[in-house]
């Protein structure tokens, strides 16, 4: 299939179709709606054989995906913000039962006050549910991310669900060029799911969701922890294979941009990193030795790659489009934690940006660069966390 000009949401829907998902259960919510509308259209036109389960809530959507996945099907859903929050209980259920479900979350700010715009707090609030998280910078990465997510999730050493995350409107409703490989090439990359156990294998009956007493529960948790560690290897292998087959390499869990000789770097996730790369080019022309580090996978967290990066820079400006009340930006918090027991000690500052869809421009990033440069020259922070856009 050639390149197409599609929205981020349509890229997600095409990817689900090309991944040959068998069951979709979803409930509409802005700005996710056009993903599931497009999938419904594929089914109505006879372009895809998918069992579509209409449900009365997001909680039920995930419950239906859990049932389908436990029965051996490749299951997919999509949601945003309040819908994701309503799914919360079932998210733990999916990972605890080791079901390789893939979901697209369109990052949207949590209410109140009501907002339908981009903000990462909805997905990051689910970080401890045992789901892997992949953040897309652009529509191509939404598409590629969904295809890779199934392959990683279904790997026999992993068996955990994946959330592929895109920005409200900035990706979901923005049209951009997406290269979609021919179906047979995708089939070569992503063969049908081969589940280890299924509810419908009546010759080998299994119990799913049984009770574990204190004598056993602890080991179940350890196995998930180990599967997440194993997933890092699988993610790098799958990302490398994707690059070899389709020309876009995802073997790095953190994508670096002009970071080799950088004095300091911007670190962040998702669509804002596209604008950051533009800003890096502008700043380089102005004489700043800066680079960028885009964290693609937030779970499992790429600790080793972050350490390698942090050893070689004087400063890291962490751009968080999210906030944990009573603490700080969530990526900043995690990145600092990773480096504490290492010899890498760059100056790190947290900039809270873009909450609820506030636009982050190239000139904003230049202003942040000027601030970082001063901090590094002075050798100490002015403050650790800055709410960058505040109206003064």
């Amino acid at each position, binding site marked *: 299939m050639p*390149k197409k*000009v599609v929205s981020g949401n349509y890229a997600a829907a095409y990817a689900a179709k090309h991944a040959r998902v068998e069951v979709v259960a979803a409930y509409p919510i802005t700005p996710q709606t056009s993903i599931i509308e497009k999938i419904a259209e594929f089914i109505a036109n006879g372009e895809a054989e998918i069992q579509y389960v209409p449900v009365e809530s997001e909680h039920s959507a995930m419950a239906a995906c859990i049932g389908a996945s436990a029965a051996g099907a490749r299951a997919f859903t999509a949601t945003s913000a309040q819908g994701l929050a309503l799914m919360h209980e079932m998210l733990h259920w999916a990972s605890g039962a080791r079901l390789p479900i893939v979901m697209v979350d369109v990052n949207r700010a949590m209410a109140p006050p009501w907002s339908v*715009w981009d903000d990462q707090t909805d997905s990051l609030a689910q970080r401890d549910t045992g789901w892997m998280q992949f953040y897309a910078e*652009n529509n191509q990465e939404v598409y590629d991310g969904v295809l890779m997510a199934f392959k990683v999730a279904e790997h026999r050493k992993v068996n955990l669900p994946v959330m592929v995350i895109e*920005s*409200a*409107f*900035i*990706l979901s*409703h*923005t*049209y*951009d*060029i997406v290269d979609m490989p021919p179906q047979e090439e995708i089939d070569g990359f992503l063969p049908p799911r081969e589940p280890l156990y299924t509810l419908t294998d009546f010759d080998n009956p299994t119990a799913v969701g049984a009770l574990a007493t204190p004598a056993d529960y602890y080991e179940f948790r350890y196995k998930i922890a180990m599967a997440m560690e194993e997933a890092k290897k699988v993610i790098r292998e799958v990302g490398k294979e994707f690059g070899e087959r389709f020309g876009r390499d995802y073997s790095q869990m953190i994508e670096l941009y002009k970071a080799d000789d950088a004095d300091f770097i911007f670190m962040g996730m998702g*669509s*804002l990193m*596209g*604008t950051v*790369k*533009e800003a890096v080019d502008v700043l380089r022309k102005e004489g700043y030795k800066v680079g960028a580090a885009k964290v693609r996978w937030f779970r499992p967290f790429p600790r080793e790659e972050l350490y390698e990066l942090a050893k070689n820079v004087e400063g890291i400006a962490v751009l968080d489009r999210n906030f944990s009340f009573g603490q700080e930006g969530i990526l900043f918090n995690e990145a600092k934690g990773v480096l504490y027991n290492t010899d890498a000690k760059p100056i790190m500052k947290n900039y809270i940006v873009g909450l609820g*869809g506030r*636009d*982050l*421009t*190239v000139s904003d990033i230049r202003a942040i660069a000027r601030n970082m440069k001063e901090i590094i020259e002075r050798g100490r922070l002015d403050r650790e966390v800055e709410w960058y856009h505040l109206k003064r």
Partner: protein
Amino acid sequence: MIEVRFHGRGGQGAVTAANILAEAAFLEGKYVQAFPFFGVERRGAPVTAFTRIDEKPIRIKTQIYEPDIVVVLDPSLLETVDVTAGLKEGGIVIVNTEKSRDEVLAKLKKKPAKLALVDATGIALEILGLPITNTSILGAFAKATGIVKIESVETAIKETFSGELGEKNAKAAREAFEKTVVHEL
């Protein structure tokens, strides 16, 4: 990079116009991006939509504040919206109107380098039977800017709307292309 801002009213198809323009430029091998203003749109209320066109991949994800080209789908917007806000020096303004060059210029806060006028509503009513001007105004865009060929606009329209609807809309674009008057200022 060329940045285009469309002004319309909710329901007139400004967002679709931005998408079709992106598709037309894509057909000519350009890199493109098209998006609505991330606001709260209602039928009849002023809305904006945007297209970026470049020779290299477009990474920037911000809104457009300083467009090179402004396209106005609804003549009444000249009374209420500053359509030339942020327009770059040397910019182009394309307006759907029955009014004269001087009448339109009197409404603009900033004088563009080029002003293109076409009665897109008249063309849409005649060919489509509806005052939906998003496809005819793209014919005017092709004429005024030369950034995309009218043939690419026609193809992109037919890819967006199937069958007779596509044919009629492509015809409206062609008609507007023929009738657009471009004033160098």
